[in-house]
């Protein structure tokens, strides 16, 4: 029998071409009981390898190829640069390996670290060393100094790792020079009485993947395949070979094969035995962590439920008791205290924070101030958060304002738990269409222009029909797949999909550890200074039971925080999010009209098309609204039944009477993950553990296969419980489609709170909210241009950028008169929004800040004065400012400003500097409306002047184009035309190829639905034109208005480069 103990996966980043799962699958096919993964300088792929092996009934051994660089004059034998293959035999060995890699990684720039000899000596315990293949120490010694050096090398390894922990490795890839080396290795092994070990130095699972491995080699060396020459592999033999093949290959050395099993039996360590421990929270003397948590919880209880009705108080009290008992039993008090401590830090620092996800199901979390949703009042399922059966850490995610505030919280964690005690989780960057097209093409030697074209063509529509496949994209880019070279390009692009490219940093996941995290997983420096990253992503961490706190930056949290600041300074009012009126009529009125641009989670086209039908009337309706427009409920066909039942057009029914308590609040339609779990427990008699398995399958990316297995279990359970076939199908559809993505109720409730807050601020403090929204772009569904136009339609006066008045951010100004546009007058009357300098494209922030600082010292009197006092202003920045009207206060008009800028930027030199500034009148004609539009869009991406279509309404009317605001007054089915600027193009994965266009004109936004056929005929027009006319039948169903397109025409309005938000 043979087992493979030296294999690399694609997690060796450009040195291996198969995923760990793929290697395990191949090993399982060959009935190997054990395999070891030795990736380069890390254990990146180990968790996935481990999980896959566990599933396949195999054992996964851990190890790594560690880069070493020893000075030439150093210890005899081990010299030069090589990769040392190390296998972990016990937990101390694993800890040594992690520390060794961490030390090497943290001191060197990314990808350049190497281990030193003394470090190797220090961390050799519990590790077994192999002598390696082409890049191993033996090959390096033989090449550098022949047999004598090779003997010295092996002697050194024996000294470092001990006699019993060195194996002389033999690989046979059908290469002559390798056999020469093998002979030398055998001679040395025999003279040192060391065991031989056969391995295949695997780099890919199957021979066919050698091509990808060659491409990776070319990419790694910044060459093309044609110029990589002998850097490429000589043949395709480094694939996983069957025990039979290996026995034949080493027929002359049966002991080398037999030793693989012997060695494998010595390796006891697996990732099950990680030894991870969550940090303990320091408590005052005389307290335990649990007693301290109890006190904090009951303190919080008073604040949260102190004024609640007695019934609720009672229920809350008993729920908290129950939760605390479980927390005590599971010894999780430290974890809760650490999160509580983080939240406390945020509050002290006035940083908005809100827990999301399943933590919102916990009354303890609510009492501790971690979450903002009352789980008792909303009757949320605590078991979704924490259950005794699960035996895994609960998941607490904290939403923080994106940007600096979040960074402060991260730094607080680092300071508190030390550099080696806390780290960010990794984010594995994998090959997706665009990167694949670019890098594969580069390796094949295609020119930059072609690569640009292909990677542009491989864009990201969510939905892909047969014609949207990769090969059609190639054709779109003008490449003929009949050409063999292009065909190969295409094949490589497909093959490389989803393989890891490099390690990034997850935006918010942090892991912390009692003691040293670098004994649990190797740490690496992140590209951001001061940051450390673990080698695993958050799913790997979860798989291995490592607890993490997600500190997620949420743009809307930053908007809310900024809005509150602006309200405080400009309105002189103090608004607290925790005490917003619960049932504000203005908010629900806006929601019911789908007037939600800029509001959190409910602003997308799909949400807007649901709001008028759902007609939210209370907070729970918003929770439903947030949850319902998700791929899970949409594909599971739950949206329509829910809406129909809500409107009383359909009877409320349950798949089975036993499910009534589970589904009553959502009218018999499952909308939340918790409901699906309960259904499984009630209808199919799932145990808590099985339900948990289902939950994880629904929550993970890698879940398709898992769902299939669970489906079978569900069917048999429901069969036993006597559910009808139809009911079974309904439940299966609901549950399997949730694998696509659906919200837990608690998560939806947390988001609904933020959605409500954003709606409230927009309705009552439009100016402040819009300013904050514009200051935190990019975020949300719409471009700033649309946000500005929407605010203007709501009566907000928006003032252009002015170098005498604008700050870097958008700010508010008091104006004497509000020029009201159509729409209601809001509380913002008297306040106008001044666009900030951040919207001047190409203007650097430091320059803008200098302008503001100089302005505070004294008003600029002319453009010459500005240039003189802000010498850092570049020519292009000044031109841009002039072009967009930002210098109009210092000149007659934009052209005059441009004319003056042209002169002012020429340094007259010291001799003429004191001469009076020449005054020459601008001979240039002022810009006309169209020119101003073009300049505005080109320079700022938006205009505060009338919408481009406003200038052409008469012509559009003559063309039969109806304004967007008129559509609600027209009858359903009427044949008409709409037209305007395309602000969003969508082809959702759930919509079977239909395309949705949002067209904005001066009166509002109109929606068009395009069938796949029509899209195919007009693909270029729809994807490229900025202004379109859509002709078709008006659909007005329950005030959801759209036009079902029959014909698409271009609309000539302006040359201004308006932008849309595409491909969501």
């Amino acid at each position: 029998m043979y087992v493979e103990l030296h294999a690399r996966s694609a997690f060796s980043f450009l040195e291996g071409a198969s995923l760990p799962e793929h290697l395990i699958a191949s090993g399982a096919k060959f009935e190997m009981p054990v395999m070891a993964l030795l990736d380069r300088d890390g254990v990146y792929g180990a968790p996935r390898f481990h999980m896959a092996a566990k599933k396949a009934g195999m054992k996964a051994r851990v190890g790594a190829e560690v880069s070493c660089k020893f000075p030439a004059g150093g210890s005899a034998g081990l010299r030069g640069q090589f990769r040392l293959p190390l296998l972990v035999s016990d937990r101390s060995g694993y800890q040594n390996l992690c520390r060794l890699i961490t030390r090497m990684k943290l001191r060197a720039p990314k990808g350049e670290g190497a281990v030193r000899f003394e470090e190797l000596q220090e961390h050799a315990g519990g590790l077994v060393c192999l002598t390696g293949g082409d890049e191993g120490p033996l090959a390096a010694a033989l090449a550098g100094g022949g047999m004598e050096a090779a003997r010295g090398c092996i002697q050194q390894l024996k000294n470092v790792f001990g006699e019993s922990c060195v194996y002389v490795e033999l690989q046979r890839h059908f290469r002559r020079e390798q056999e020469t080396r093998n002979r030398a290795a055998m001679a040395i092994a025999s003279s040192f009485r060391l065991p031989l070990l056969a391995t295949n130095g695997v780099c890919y699972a199957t021979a066919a993947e050698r091509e990808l491995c060659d491409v990776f080699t070319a990419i790694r060396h910044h060459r093309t395949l044609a110029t990589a020459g002998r850097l490429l592999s000589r043949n395709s033999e480094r694939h996983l070979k069957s025990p039979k093949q290996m026995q034949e290959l080493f027929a002359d050395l049966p002991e080398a094969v037999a030793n693989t099993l012997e060695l494998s039996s010595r390796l006891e360590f697996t990732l099950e035995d990680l030894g991870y421990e969550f940090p303990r929270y320091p408590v005052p003397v005389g307290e335990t962590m649990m007693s301290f948590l109890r006190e904090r919880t009951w303190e919080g209880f008073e604040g949260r439920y102190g004024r609640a009705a007695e019934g609720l108080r009672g229920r809350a009290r008993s729920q908290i008791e129950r939760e605390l008992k479980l927390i005590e039993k599971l010894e999780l008090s430290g974890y809760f205290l650490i999160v509580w401590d983080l939240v406390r830090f945020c509050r002290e620092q006035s940083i908005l924070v809100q827990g999301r996800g399943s933590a919102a199901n916990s009354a303890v979390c609510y009492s501790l101030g971690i979450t903002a949703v009352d789980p008792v009042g909303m009757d949320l399922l605590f078991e979704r958060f924490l259950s005794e059966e699960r035996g895994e850490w609960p998941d607490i995610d904290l939403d923080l304002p994106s940007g600096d505030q979040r960074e402060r919280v991260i730094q607080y964690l680092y300071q508190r738990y030390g550099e080696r005690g806390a780290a960010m989780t990794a984010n594995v960057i994998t090959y997706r269409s665009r990167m694949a097209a670019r890098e594969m093409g580069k390796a094949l030697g295609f020119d930059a222009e072609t690569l640009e074209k292909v990677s542009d063509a491989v864009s990201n529509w969510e939905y892909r029909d047969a014609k949207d496949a990769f090969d059609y994209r190639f054709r779109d880019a003008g490449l003929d797949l009949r050409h063999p070279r292009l065909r190969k390009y295409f094949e490589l692009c497909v093959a490389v999909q989803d393989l890891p490219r490099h390690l990034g940093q997850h935006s918010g996941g942090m892991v912390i550890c009692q003691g040293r995290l670098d004994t649990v997983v190797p740490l690496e420096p992140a590209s951001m200074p001061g940051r450390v990253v673990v080698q695993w992503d958050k799913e790997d961490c979860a798989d291995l039971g490592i607890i993490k706190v997600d500190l997620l930056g949420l743009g809307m949290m930053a908007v809310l925080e900024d809005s509150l600041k602006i309200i405080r300074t400009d309105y002189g009012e103090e608004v607290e999010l925790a005490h917003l009126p619960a049932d504000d009529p203005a908010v629900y009125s806006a929601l019911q009209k789908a007037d939600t641009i800029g509001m959190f989670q409910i602003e997308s086209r799909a949400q807007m098309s649901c709001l008028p039908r759902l007609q939210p009337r209370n907070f729970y309706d918003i929770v439903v609204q947030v949850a319902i427009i998700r791929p899970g409920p949409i594909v599971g066909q739950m949206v329509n039944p829910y809406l129909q039942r809500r409107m009383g057009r359909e009877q409320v029914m349950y798949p089975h009477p036993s499910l009534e308590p589970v589904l009553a609040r959502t009218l018999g339609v499952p909308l939340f993950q918790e409901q699906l779990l309960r259904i499984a427990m009630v209808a199919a008699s799932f145990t808590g553990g099985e339900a948990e398995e289902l939950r994880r399958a629904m929550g993970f990316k890698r879940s398709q296969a898992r769902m299939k297995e669970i489906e079978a279990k569900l069917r048999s359970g429901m069969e036993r419980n006597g559910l009808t076939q139809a009911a079974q199908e309904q439940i299966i559809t609901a549950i399997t489609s949730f694998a696509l993505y659906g919200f837990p109720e608690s998560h939806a409730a947390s988001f609904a709170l933020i959605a409500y807050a954003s709606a409230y601020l927009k309705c009552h403090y439009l100016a402040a909210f819009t300013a904050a929204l514009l200051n935190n772009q990019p975020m949300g569904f719409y471009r700033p241009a649309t946000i500005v136009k929407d605010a203007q339609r709501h009566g907000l006066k928006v003032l252009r950028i002015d170098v005498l008045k604008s700050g870097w951010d958008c700010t508010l100004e008091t104006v004497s008169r509000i020029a009201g546009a159509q729409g209601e007058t809001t509380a913002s009357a008297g306040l106008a929004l001044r666009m900030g300098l951040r919207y001047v494209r190409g203007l650097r922030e430091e320059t803008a800040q200098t302008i503001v600082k100089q302005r505070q010292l004294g008003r600029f009197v002319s453009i010459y004065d500005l240039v003189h006092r802000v010498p850092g202003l570049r020519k292009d920045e000044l031109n841009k400012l002039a072009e967009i009207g930002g210098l109009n206060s210092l000149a007659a008009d934009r052209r005059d400003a441009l004319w003056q800028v042209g002169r002012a930027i020429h340094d007259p030199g010291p001799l003429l500097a004191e001469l009076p500034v020449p005054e020459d009148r601008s001979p240039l004609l002022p810009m006309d409306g169209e020119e101003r539009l073009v300049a505005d869009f080109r320079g700022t991406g938006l205009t505060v002047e009338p919408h481009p279509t406003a200038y052409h309404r008469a012509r559009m009317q003559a063309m039969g184009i109806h304004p967007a605001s008129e559509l609600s007054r027209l009858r359903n089915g009427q044949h008409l035309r709409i037209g305007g600027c395309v602000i969003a193009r969508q082809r959702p994965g759930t919509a079977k190829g239909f395309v949705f266009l949002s067209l904005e004109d001066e009166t509002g936004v109109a929606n068009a639905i395009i069938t796949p056929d029509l899209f195919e005929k007009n693909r270029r027009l729809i994807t490229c034109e900025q202004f379109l006319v859509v002709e078709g039948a008006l659909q007005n169903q329950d005030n959801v208005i759209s036009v079902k397109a029959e014909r698409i025409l271009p609309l000539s309005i302006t040359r201004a480069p308006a932008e849309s938000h595409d491909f969501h």
Partner: protein
Amino acid sequence: MPYACIFVPDFPVEAWLRAEPELRGQAVAVLEGKAPLQRIVATNENARGAGIRLGMTRLQAETGGGVVLRVRSAQQEAAAHAALLDCAQSFSPRVEDTSDDTVLLDVAGLEALFGPLSRMARTMAQRTAQLGLVAQVAVAANPDAAALAARGFSGVTVISEGKEAEELGRLPLEALFTNRQAEAEQFLETLERWGIRNLRELAALPEAPLSGRLGQEGLHLQQLARGATMRPLVPAEELLVFEEGIELEYPLVLLEPLAFLLARLLEQVCARVGARARVIQELRLELELENGRRERGQNIFQRRLRLPVPLLDAKVFLKLLQLDLQAHPPGAPIVKIHLAAEPARPRAAQSGLFQPALPEPEKLELTLARIARVVGEDKVGSPELCDTHRPESFQLRRFVPGDSEAETKSVSQSRSLVTASRIFRPPWIAAVTVQDGKPMHIDCPRRKEVSGKVLWASGPWRSSGDWWEQEGWSHEQWDVALQQGDGIVLYRLVRDLLRGKWFVEGAYD
């Protein structure tokens, strides 16, 4: 001082249309680049009308249908350019070779010869058309104005003196820039920002403030826009063009009389080149063959001799041309001979006292040419190993004496092999019986002695590569021992895995 300008729009297309006039009237586009990634670099009006845009790929252009595609030809363009110059020089002795598609002529005093300026311009357009090129011709009081007008206005334009600004004013700003380099883009951007769209608006700007903003270059552009620049013509340097030709009264069939004529032409060329203290770097021979029409560019037989060392020896040239023509016979009777020589400065070289004597360059060239005639041009030179695993892959580099030293050194540094082997070229095809994946019996039809039972075999040694090319390869090598008489001989056996064939590639000593 009137000047005329002849401008050929869409020059790369026109160069092709000159060769294939039957395509005129059709949509024609010219591609450039290496297949399969060629892109459109020029189109004619019809092609633009058919939606063909610059930068499109061949596939995109073909998708539209109805467009004739040609690959850009430097030769055609050079010929077209020469024709353009020919045309210009047939009118005036002072001709500026402004660019491939543009020539400027000083036409002062030529009215007496060609009539009034407007008629002269029309004649120029007609004559250019006779040479197969459709041109735009303009006459103005200064060269730049003439060039601007020719580029900007179709047909024939005559601008009276003093009316330049008025006439040119209609042109868009882009007309000022013949190529869109970064600097040009910057000017255009600034002017566009100012709302200046045509030359009239640029011309109207006040001079001093303009110079304060755009500097001297800006002022120059304004002068151009006003048609008010005056610069001396830079006449094409005719003297360094060494071309000779003979139009034959009767077609030549044999190479011998051709050699006689060539000798005469070469003598003349060498004499002229020598008088200018130059030597010849390159010789271009153009033979027009019987029944060929020059305009069509077909049936023109061209040969080019690029010499690694410039020479001036008519006899050597003649011998080289003879060898070349023997290797590449024209294939049809010759009606016209055209010979052009590219001059170069003579080399100054002094041999080192201790350096080994090298062959004389003239003799070396002759020898190489002789070998090339026998084995083919691509099979002469110094072999150089390619950086690939492909066995025995090499390429030929042009042989340059003196390079061998470094190579010898590197060979001597490489470690010696234990066993010497001799390689059979070409390898011998063999029939091999395989058992358990190993060769058991060999039968080599070409060499009966290389047949028999394999006593023992070592291998396989596998190599494969170039899988991304059409010519990928995958080999398996075996070292086998065969009984031969009393002794045992070791052979190297190769199996081509893609073609499934066996070869005996060599033997070990």
